């Protein structure tokens, strides 16, 4: 794409509205206190993993309830290589990805031939196994007591005195996963994945090697989820098996894409951003003593959203967004004259 072409795209509402959103996302933390920044960082990392989950689960319709295994593997790989061998976390991300790919191949080979519900149950089992394994091999993993990471600020450790940098790295991660999703959505691979979701046998008969496609998508999704785990631990700095392989977190990876819109590009982000920070915001505003009420309200909101938007927020509001965006003007005077001829193309 040439520079003038990009400039022209940016002048249209479909270009400058997303650009505006990204700009706001970049400037937002500068105006916030550090406890609000904290909420923002954790939300964006969550959105990145939810988007990674969607690339497999949302596109193929295989509900992996075990994606926290890859998140936890990334987090533990970074922790152990950093604390035991002093390897800078930024270099450990790739190792975590490779280990997650290996784990995904093992889990995938064993479970991907199962039908929907059974696949979900089997992946759930993988979370429990991971938790127990990391608790049991105490001498290597620190066991249930957990590990506190040494805080050494720097670009290679991905640790910063100013949280804004953690936030920007998280945003970069999220944008990267979104870019990969967009790339795949427009290609043969993406078409096949969506076709598998709709009817796997019919897709086979159209020449698609569905077993191989599923395992590839699973591995890619696992590798991307692992990055989220590595970023999470360089920010939170404390890990134990029940935190790294938290079953609830694994459910959120499924829930947020479901709420936002399965198999859509922006769905997982929309779902995460709307739902995930609710509890943190409540306790920020009302204090920790209202936690039980907060949890109930959170649960209630979940139920209401699923009832109101059974097909996901993005699919429901997509047309409204497009109509709204169509009413916005194109920026720049010369553009108005060009527009009709462009639309004919």
């Amino acid at each position, binding site marked *: 794409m040439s520079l003038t072409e990009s400039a022209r795209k940016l002048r249209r509402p479909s270009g400058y509205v997303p650009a505006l959103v990204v700009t706001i996302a970049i400037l937002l933390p500068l105006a916030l206190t550090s406890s609000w920044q904290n909420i923002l960082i954790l939300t964006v990392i969550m959105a990145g993993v939810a988007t990674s989950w969607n690339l497999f689960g949302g596109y193929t319709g295989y509900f992996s309830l075990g994606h926290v295994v890859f998140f936890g593997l990334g987090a533990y790989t970074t922790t152990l290589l950093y604390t035991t061998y002093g390897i800078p976390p930024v270099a450990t991300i790739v190792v975590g990805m490779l280990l997650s790919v290996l784990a995904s191949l093992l889990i995938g080979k064993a479970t991907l031939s199962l039908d929907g519900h059974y696949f979900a149950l089997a992946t759930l089992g993988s979370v429990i196994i991971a938790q127990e394994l990391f608790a049991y091999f105490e001498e290597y993993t620190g066991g249930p007591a957990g590990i506190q990471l040494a805080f050494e600020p720097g670009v290679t450790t991905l640790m910063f005195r100013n949280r804004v940098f953690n936030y920007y790295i998280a945003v970069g991660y999220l944008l990267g996963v979104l870019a990969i999703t967009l790339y795949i959505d427009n290609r*043969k691979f993406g078409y096949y994945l969506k076709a598998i979701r*709709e*009817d796997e046998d019919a*897709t086979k*008969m159209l020449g698609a090697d569905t077993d191989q496609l599923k395992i590839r998508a699973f591995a890619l999704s696992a590798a991307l989820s692992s990055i989220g785990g590595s970023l999470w631990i360089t920010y939170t700095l404390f890990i134990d098996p029940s935190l790294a392989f938290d079953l609830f977190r694994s459910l959120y990876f499924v829930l947020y894409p479901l709420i936002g819109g399965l198999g859509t590009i922006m769905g997982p982000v929309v779902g995460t951003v709307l739902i995930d920070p609710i509890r943190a915001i409540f306790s920020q505003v009302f204090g920790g003593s209202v936690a039980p009420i907060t949890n109930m309200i959170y649960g209630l909101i979940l139920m209401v959203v699923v009832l109101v938007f059974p097909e996901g927020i993005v699919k429901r509001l997509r047309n409204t967004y497009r109509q709204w965006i169509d009413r916005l003007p194109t920026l720049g005077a010369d553009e108005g004259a060009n527009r009709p001829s462009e639309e004919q193309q």
Partner: protein
Amino acid sequence: MTNGKTVLSVDGLTKRFGGLVAVDDISFELYENELMGLIGPNGAGKTTLFDLITGFHPPTAGTVQLNGEQLVGRQPHEICRLGLTRTFQIPRPLADLTVRENVAVGAFNQTDDRTEAEAIAGEILDLVSFDFEYESQAEDLPIAGKKKLEVAKALATGPEVLLLDEVLAGLNTAEVEEFLDVIEELRADVTVIMIEHNLDAIMALADRVLVMEQGGKLALDDPEAVQQDPAVIEAYIGSE
């Protein structure tokens, strides 16, 4: 008709489900550009025969060869890539995708490029005179649209042999007429086996008709001969 080159060769194909013999020792040759009708009462094993040929079920015995390549033991997608695919009796649209995307998924069997796949999809939809919006959701189509989409998807894979499973069922007279024209167009390029309950249609279209009963082959001949075969009249037409 003059017998062309043999494209598909089925030999002794048998499928037992427990004690039931669903397909019983079926053998036939399919010739290039032929249209073979496949008829028989419900439960005769017609669809199971398709399942065996396309790799959905492993046969208990027998072989299937496409241009000399053994199909038994291969996966459906491998068989499709070799040039044989099918439609399903109950249409199986990729519901959440558009019509064009549905057909493009088939066309990806011929190309890795999306623009090209969507272009092929457009051509195929034109070819089958698809009369609904190409950008509409597949699940919103009426039954006639879903039936045609089923054929378009399969055609988009670029098959040499196409197995059609009751594509006319559930269509009204006008829709059947139109569909028959489409099939007439297709036969210049593909070799077809067509399961059909509409006997008038099949007798008018087919070069030869294979009659199945209780899993076995009752007759295989040209339409006139089949219609006069006493065994066929007795077992199939007479019993309906």
